[in-house]
């Protein structure tokens, strides 16, 4: 198979005609290592892999090693202490709380964001009038552009804007609520009350991301031939039935990818938290692993311990990605479109 492919790529030019190709002969091998081929390997394989090893793999390996040491982060010296950082981690109530917060966010944020994004994407592409061609709502291109706006604003700016909106005394939200007569919201600290803080923060993240995933789904739905939707409509399927039975199965792969990306974001969430809840929120209800890691490393000077947190975060992230694949398999992954 290899020879076939490589022959197809290069031998058309380099190999002379007429049965000279004898497998395994030294001559053949030498002849095939042309400049074209070597430069091709170099540019497309060796250099990227070298970069990958230097800038992705080696830092990972290094961090994993540091997690087994008591490195403070400011000395060249460190002692190997085995797994005791990990042992400490699993009894560290603050870190475990941060893990819990992250897991909750990784469940709620993707589900809500993607459901909303799918809802809007359906409306904009196939949810329009049931007469004539399959089309979206009127002025759908306007909605599409407007809904993308929050994504254009950097995450840190979104965080800062919303921290002002949530301000208990001069914020927009309490201003509106008290104006319409809900006096119990006077000076209500949305980001400072343990009951509301995490939901307020998740709302901001969802608000910032729905537009992007909506555009992603629109692009996917546009790739599905309109005849499929027309056929469904002729068979009497309503909008909801079309979305569940036609749209989602046909763009399954996109949904899976979206789930993974947004889940990773929810497991990180550092930028939003840095703007909204730099201190971890009331009773640490919005503390995320990345924040705790950063604190441990830079303000407490325990880089070894922080690296152990990083390793745990990476494992949780991979486990999440694995879970998404698994769920996709269980729910009809076999009949994957396009496989």
């Amino acid at each position: 198979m290899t020879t076939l492919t490589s022959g197809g790529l290069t031998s058309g030019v380099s190999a002379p005609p007429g049965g000279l190709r004898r497998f395994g002969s030294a001559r053949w091998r030498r002849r095939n290592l042309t400049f074209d081929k070597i430069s091709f390997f170099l540019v497309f394989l060796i250099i990227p892999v070298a970069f990958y090893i230097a800038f992705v793999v080696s830092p990972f390996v290094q961090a994993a090693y540091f997690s087994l040491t008591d490195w403070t982060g400011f000395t060249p010296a460190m002692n190997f202490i085995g797994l005791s950082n990990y042992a400490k981690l699993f009894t560290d109530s603050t870190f475990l709380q941060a893990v819990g917060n992250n897991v909750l966010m990784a469940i709620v944020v993707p589900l809500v964001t993607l459901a909303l994004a799918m809802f809007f994407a359906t409306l904009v592409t196939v949810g329009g009038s049931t007469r004539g061609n399959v089309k979206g709502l009127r002025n759908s291109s306007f909605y599409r552009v407007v809904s993308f706006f929050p994504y254009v604003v950097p995450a840190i700016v979104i965080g800062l804007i919303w921290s002002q909106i949530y301000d208990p005394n001069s914020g927009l939200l309490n201003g509106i609520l008290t104006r319409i007569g809900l006096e119990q919201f006077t000076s209500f600290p949305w980001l400072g009350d343990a009951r509301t803080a995490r939901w307020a923060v998740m709302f901001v993240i969802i608000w910032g991301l729905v537009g992007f995933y909506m555009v992603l789904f629109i692009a996917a739905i546009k790739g599905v031939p309109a005849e499929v939707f027309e056929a469904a409509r002729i068979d009497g399927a309503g909008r909801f039935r079309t979305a569940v039975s036609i749209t989602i199965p046909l763009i399954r792969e996109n949904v899976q990818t979206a789930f993974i990306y947004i889940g990773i974001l929810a497991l990180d969430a550092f930028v939003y938290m840095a703007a909204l809840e730099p201190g971890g929120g009331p009773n640490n209800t919005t503390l995320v692993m990345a924040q705790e890691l950063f604190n441990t490393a830079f303000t407490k000077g325990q880089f070894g311990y922080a690296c152990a947190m990083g390793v745990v975060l990476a494992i949780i992230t991979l486990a999440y990605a694995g879970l998404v694949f698994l769920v996709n398999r269980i729910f009809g992954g076999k009949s994957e479109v396009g496989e």
Partner: protein
Amino acid sequence: MGIYGKPLGRRDFLRGSLAAAALAATGSLAACATSGTGSSTTSSSAPAGQVSDTNPFGVQSGSTVDAVIFNGGYGIDYAEFAAKQVQAKQSGVTVKVTPTTKVAQTLQPRFVAGNPPDVIDNSGAGLIGINTIRDQLAELNDVIEAKNYEGTVIKDTLYPGVMNPGTFDGKFIVLNYALTVYALWYSASLFEQMGWTVPKTYDEMLSLGAEAKGKGKYLLGWGKEAATYYQTMAIGSAIKEGGDEVRLALENLKPGCWSLPPIQDVFNGLKKIIDAGYVKPGGSGTQFTAAQAQWSNAEQFILYPSGGWIENEMKSQTKSGFKMTGAPEPVVSSNSKMPWEALHSTAGEGYIVPSQGKNVAGGKEFMRAMLSHDAAVNFAKTKLSSTIVKGTVPADGFGSTALQSQIKMLESAGSNIFSWNFVDLYGMNTDQLVVWNSFLSGDSDVAKLTKGLQDITDKVAKDDSIKKVQVS
């Protein structure tokens, strides 16, 4: 192999790469890695310069001093002023002043590589925990024993006790430059207009709260990032009440230290004020400068515990004619161990000289310039805040009531000046903020506050990987 026993197909490969992308996205992990651990060999920075009275550390002519200065509330212009002084006094020496807002993040790789700057202003929210680098710092005794540019021994020009916060296990390694007085701040004009007097005990605070309420004002207020200003006040009050024994219990992370009677009395005093509804609600969701503006500009509450930097910090958001003035933190009873006038004062803006720096002598010379009269007066005048150098603030405080009151408080405190280190030393503030935010918003009680603070203290005390500093 694929899931159905097929050979690794294209799709599975793509899936694998997606997983790899997922791994790559966990950048936090990679962020832990270094750019390579540098050699640990100390660059023996032999100063070739001649040691003399005018060049006490032997700075080499033609050498460069690499100064990294925290660019925060005080800016860097005062450091540039000192740099010019060095260049004027030591011919051929160049001082390079680099500003930074995140000291730990910026300098961490340089410490690891064994190539730190010659002098660092280790301040701000992103400072390097002194505990992590204290073995790598030069002792600074020779700096304060040297003569300043006017010919006086520097030690004799400083306020008493300013070396204490920079001394760890008997080694003086951090020169804290800006003198900070912790106080309860108020508007002298408003108090005069209303006929109020400054409360000296928590009971007096409570009754002032009732009066303020009558005028539609709250007594106290706070912002979420600064909830622990109330902890600072509470510890200050408790130390005045119970004396050094309270301070030492806290500093040495003693079991049950937060349950000592003086601390509990202060907490109960605060709790009464909170329960009476004299604290402006919503602080746990308010950004701290916004909260401070509710005090200094809108006058929605009337007392605010803070350090002396408050005037500079709120300069643009202070009502005209506010006359910001400080008073010592309240005590609990009339028979407290220290008088009400006793003062929590410490020095901030910690300057350090890493012993591995290329030009240790140059770093020390920079400090000598800062501690000399011209630079110290320049700081006081432009920042409206005193340095640790005495006699740089005139009686009119350069027209600042806050600075006047600071000097007055320092004078009346005499030798009753105290401070503590444990909160910053062990990096506890972030965890303590959480507990204090819920206490101030009325969601928890004294028992919960005490337990929360004790848990934070115990966690550090029990962690063998954290080096402890014994305080006596």
